[in-house]
């Protein structure tokens, strides 16, 4: 029966440290991503909803330059989509 060779304590510890560092980096990066994502989406959604409501019925919500606020909100909310499409297009043409 084949038997696995026991790892040295140093190698084991080193591997554990590497895995821990990897997981830690991933957690930090994920949090950073989540915070950036939520901030962008909340601001975009607030601008779009606020601007649209003010545009449709200024009596309900009084926002100065409502159309511009709605447009900027839509751009923040959906601009990334346009950029992603362009990015994919560039990548596809690059890889031809």
């Amino acid at each position, binding site marked *: 029966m084949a038997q696995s060779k026991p790892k040295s304590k140093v190698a084991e510890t080193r591997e554990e440290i590497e895995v821990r560092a990897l997981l830690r980096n991933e957690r930090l990066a994920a949090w950073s991503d989540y915070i950036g994502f939520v901030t962008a989406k909340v601001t975009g959604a607030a601008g779009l909803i606020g601007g649209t409501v003010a545009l449709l019925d200024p009596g309900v919500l009084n926002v100065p330059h409502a159309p511009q606020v709605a447009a900027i909100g839509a751009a923040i909310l959906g601009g990334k989509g346009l950029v992603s499409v362009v990015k994919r297009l560039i990548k*596809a043409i690059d890889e031809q």
Partner: protein
Amino acid sequence: MTYTAFTLLVVSVLGVLALAARPRLSHRSRYFLIRIDMAGFAASLILVGVCFYERGWPGAPLVGTLAIALGVQLLLWLVGVRSEWVGDRHPRLTAPEPHEEETTLTHLLRIYRILRSLREAAGPPERRQSEALRCLEEVAMRLHKLASEVDAQLSEGIVGRGEISSIAKHLHEEAIRIRLQAWPEGPPEAYLEQEQRRTDLIRKYREEAGKIDEAIVRGMMKYPELEDLYLSSKEGNPFRRLADIASLLGVASLPQAMELIPEIESTLVFLTKHTGFLDGTGPGKRGVD
């Protein structure tokens, strides 16, 4: 103005279609043309937005502002500004820890090295008979390709840190899976004996590779400007070469590693003489290239 804006819009759309039709162009030409074309598209969006305002077309405040904002976002992305607001994140501009993505890439390389050393440890090609080892080799090659793609995408700014970390985690899990698949009950006796003979020599040059890796990271942390130098892919850049050697050492077979030793020595002497960071003696002459 209106004529210019719409002409630019039509020309840029036609340009994309023409490039997508696979013309006989070199990769470099396509690379520049598609980017110039997209910059034209972004500029035309901004101009169309301005036209809405200038001509007083209906919905100008809404449609015009939207077109201008999208055009600006696209232009910013094309010139390399990355954030959650304008497109995919860019590790170089948004990373709170400037060396984090480098460390993650180092992890990728380390995982790949583990795979390669597993493959090497299986012995010469004629002994690699079992299905498990062939599978191991195939997946190792696939992972190598993936790691190279990730590296290329990172330098292009296409993937963010979160994505890199996820890929690193995925690779790590894959490595564990492959190891289990290759030796479900642990490595065979023959492998253990062979490994014992190789361990000392392999450990020796692996340690050297690790030292070089550490020295590069330590040097870059001490002198941030070295990071830019390291990241620039200038031909003959000693930092880049050193990192390449470190990577090669991590994956090379023993004879290949031995061939690299003179080059390692000369590069180390060069760097120590010019920067002093490898032996920790201080800044020395920083403008190395």
